[in-house]
């Protein structure tokens, strides 16, 4: 699975997610992270999110939307909401994976609960990185 989230100069957010599914998956199985709400979501009031991992768990957890809800309803920061979902909520139902997220102030968060996640980021402040494992 691959994905990208961005915040542009007008503070507009967007998320994109694309996947080839799972090796040997049953034909007709829909349910990787490229499902609106579950693994892909964007709302200028809160954040843009793209997920990766065991898709069925992301469907059950409505993960991408959940990050947005935690920010909107519980006033969590992007980092707090993303960590809550990936390090607690998705683990509680047995899911594994990670997400990338950005808010309208161009803050980014890239939590994952697996050994690694291929990831890269760059902000207009000059913060940038390309990483695979937990550093």
């Amino acid at each position, binding site marked *: 699975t691959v994905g990208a989230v961005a915040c542009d100069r007008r503070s507009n957010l*967007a998320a994109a997610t694309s996947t080839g599914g799972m*090796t040997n998956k049953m034909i007709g199985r829909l349910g990787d992270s490229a499902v609106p709400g579950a693994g892909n979501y964007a709302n200028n009031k809160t954040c843009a999110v793209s997920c990766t991992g065991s898709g069925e768990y992301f469907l059950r957890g409505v993960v991408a939307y959940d990050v947005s809800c935690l920010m909107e309803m519980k006033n969590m920061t992007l980092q707090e909401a993303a960590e809550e979902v990936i390090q607690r909520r998705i683990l509680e139902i047995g899911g594994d994976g990670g997400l990338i997220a950005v808010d309208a102030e161009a803050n980014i968060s890239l939590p994952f609960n697996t*050994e690694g996640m291929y990831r890269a980021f760059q902000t207009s402040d000059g913060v940038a990185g390309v990483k695979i494992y937990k550093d």
Partner: protein
Amino acid sequence: MARFAIALHGGAGTLIKGNMTPDKEKAYKKVLSEALQKGYTVLENDGAAVDAVQEAVMCMEDSALFNAGKGSVFSANGTHEMEAAIMEGKTRKAGAVALLTGIKNPISVARDVMEKSQHVFLLGQGALEFAKSMDHVLQDSKYFYDEFRYQQWQEIKGSSQFQLDHSKSKNSKFG
């Protein structure tokens, strides 16, 4: 002008360090850097976030290293069924496709579903027909063939097991 930023991922899982050679790591990071640069350049030139994320994802879809587009894994019958979704935060418009085969860049089809159809989600044959009507680039099965992906499939072909792109097999039942 406000700050801007982009982030991207190429999948998560059990990335056994012993299986990651320096050359492989370099190759993965090269594509990630290229995708990042493409997306960031859009933002730097005052482009829209939705264009930036599409550019970045298309770059990764064109690489055999990641499980999307060209690098899609084999499903149970040896085909490649792809899924893609895109969403804009300002309008909360969304577009998605699933069970899509033979399309070079599924994310661009999802973008067209969002902008040029009255629907959000198109599946299978309907998604393929829509993609064709929008003149999206088609590719035959040779384009999607990758020896490493094929061998991954051979290991569990015929079983009820399936495997996340960067993980060991998972047998647990889903609710």
